[in-house]
């Protein structure tokens, strides 16, 4: 039983990472109906920003304030990166055919990956620990402080995002734009600004995920965003694309499914399980767990 619980903990911790990344996917898709292929790579950039910040400002003792500062720095940098990507790569093709923007997204993704290999070097790097490492024993289940942090942060950020969308004016504007972009423009909403904010938020969350994962599993490399990004996208679809709490639920489910597949089935199917879930969901319930059915208009 304790093995089962331990695997559950492992799964929730992994799933929280997917959830954080999925939030960005779901927001951008909700607004632009665009799968931002490059989102997973922003997560990678976030991890590297954290890496360079940690090694640059070396400290003797790991401490919480330092860890938080590094995470916030990474979030800010990647938020800016998200805005830049949107402005220069996606906005020019916003009005074009779907395939065009999809291919552009693929192009940006490749650019970040290969640019990362060029800039950071293709070899994996090992993240120094920034926060004090502790272990907790709860009912014979071991939880590390990193795992706990990841889970708590993803819950907090999801709650923050929900509150932001429901309660603030900008949030309301985001909802309006996701409903109907042209009508929102007519209502006086500056859609360009809202879209930029959406990208900034999503990218910031991905960066947070990157830094957190780097603290928990100290290995980072320029291609780490590919698989995690895809699985996070599956999580977003699973939860209902465009739906914020759905992204959290989807992420956790995918994380748990992956860990259980590795532990009880076979580790070589680790990557396949997410895609199997994707195909299943798209065939049987394409709107996802919490999504609404969208009729295609002629």
């Amino acid at each position, binding site marked *: 039983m*304790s*093995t089962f619980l*331990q*695997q559950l903990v*492992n*799964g929730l911790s*992994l799933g929280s990472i997917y959830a954080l990344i999925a939030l960005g996917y779901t927001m951008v898709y909700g607004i632009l109906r665009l799968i931002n292929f490059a989102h997973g790579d922003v997560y990678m950039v976030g991890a590297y920003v954290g890496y360079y910040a940690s090694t640059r400002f070396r400290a003797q003792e790991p401490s919480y304030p330092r860890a938080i500062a590094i995470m916030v720095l990474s979030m800010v940098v990647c938020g800016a990166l998200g805005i830049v990507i949107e402005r220069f790569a996606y906005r020019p093709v916003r009005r074009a055919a779907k395939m065009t923007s999809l291919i552009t997204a693929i192009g940006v993704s490749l650019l970040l990956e290969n640019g990362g290999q060029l800039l950071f*070097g*293709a*070899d*994996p790097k*090992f993240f120094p620990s920034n926060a004090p490492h502790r*272990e907790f*024993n709860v009912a014979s289940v*071991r939880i*590390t402080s990193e795992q706990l942090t990841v889970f708590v942060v993803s819950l907090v950020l999801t709650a923050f995002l929900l509150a932001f969308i429901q309660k603030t004016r900008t949030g309301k504007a985001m909802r309006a734009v996701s409903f109907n972009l042209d009508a929102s423009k007519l209502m006086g909403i500056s859609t360009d600004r809202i879209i930029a904010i959406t990208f900034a938020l999503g990218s910031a969350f991905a960066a947070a995920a990157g830094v957190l994962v780097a603290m928990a*599993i*100290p*290995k980072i490399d320029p291609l*780490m965003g590919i698989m995690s990004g895809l699985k996070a996208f599956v999580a977003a679809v699973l939860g209902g694309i465009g739906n914020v709490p759905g992204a959290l639920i989807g992420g956790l489910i995918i994380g748990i499914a*992956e*860990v*259980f597949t*590795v*532990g*009880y089935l*076979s*580790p*070589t199917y*680790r990557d396949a399980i997410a895609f199997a879930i994707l195909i299943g969901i798209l065939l049987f319930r394409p709107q996802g767990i919490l999504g609404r059915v969208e009729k295609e208009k002629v």
Partner: protein
Amino acid sequence: MKMRRTGMLALTLGVAAAFGCAPGRSSKEIVIGEYGSLTGNTATFGQSTKNGSEMAFNEINQAGGLLGKPVKLVVEDDQSKPEEAATAVTKLINQNAVQAVLGEVASSRSLAAAPICQGAKVPMVTPSSTNPKVTQVGDYIFRVCFTDIQQGEADAKFAAKSLKLKKAALLYDVRNDYSVGLRLVFAQKFKEYGGEIVAEQSYSEGDSDFRAQLTQLKSANPEVIYVPGYYTEVGTIARQSRDLGISAPLLGGDGWDSPRLWEIGGKALNGCYFSNHYSVDDPAPAVQKFVADYKGKYGNTPDALAALGYDAARILADAIKRANSTDGAKVRDALAQTKDFAGVTGTITIDKDRNAVKPVVMLKVQDGKFVFQERIEPGA
């Protein structure tokens, strides 16, 4: 219609033919090729080996060269990927017209390249690939290290007899032949020595999260976990196993040997063991001289891969000298007859299976150092 298309095709090819020219075989120097993982998941393997072989050829060139000509080493990076190893070796043979090939460390990559060398009748000497299948590819493929049959048995003997442990769990890399092969030998021998394999899990090279597998292994309460993988994953596995509260020591093979192992695994590796080809602490004068020279040239302590790279290069050069020619078949024959070669990693004799029979050295990881534990002789 089709004629026009064929015509266009022929035209393009004519142009291509014009700028492609066949490389001439240089008679002014001896060109040796080396392929290795200079980048990628196991980057230190290729870098160390390259350092070792470069140092060897430098020494040879400074002493007057080989058969009166300088030796030129051409190194190709295979990015730690087997398909790139195949491409790299093809390029070395076709484009650089190498007389012989050194490489690789990882058995999977050696296995990808060996058929190509064998088919082209170019002798290939692997410094550190330990999977038995590598030299079985053909009579042009040699190795200067022990095979995993020996290594797995030594590991099992060490665990059962020296550490006196009875229950082992296995965590191996399903992605490469080395790990798969070594694990099979260990499991078989450990049982022969009276031990029991209580659990088994696998992972893929490149993975970074092993918690699911480790959690499963923990529930079987092993006394030792055998991890015959490469250093990048081993370090992370060590860390995560301690996070999960597993206190059993880890045991592994020569794939652990890297200057980066401690950087990755840290304190989690204290009290863990692995088998290797040589120990830096070996007081033999030849070893100490090599260590000193290497340190002087490259600034850090040589690992076993550097030592094997050094030995492999020198054995190849010695074979070329004995054959008095760079003809593939003659070099192959000379390699097969290598006897009692005084290498840094021991006295090397190539047996009829084109393998070297050498002792296995057991090392313990303690505070960033690899401490010599014992030497297990072949067949002992």
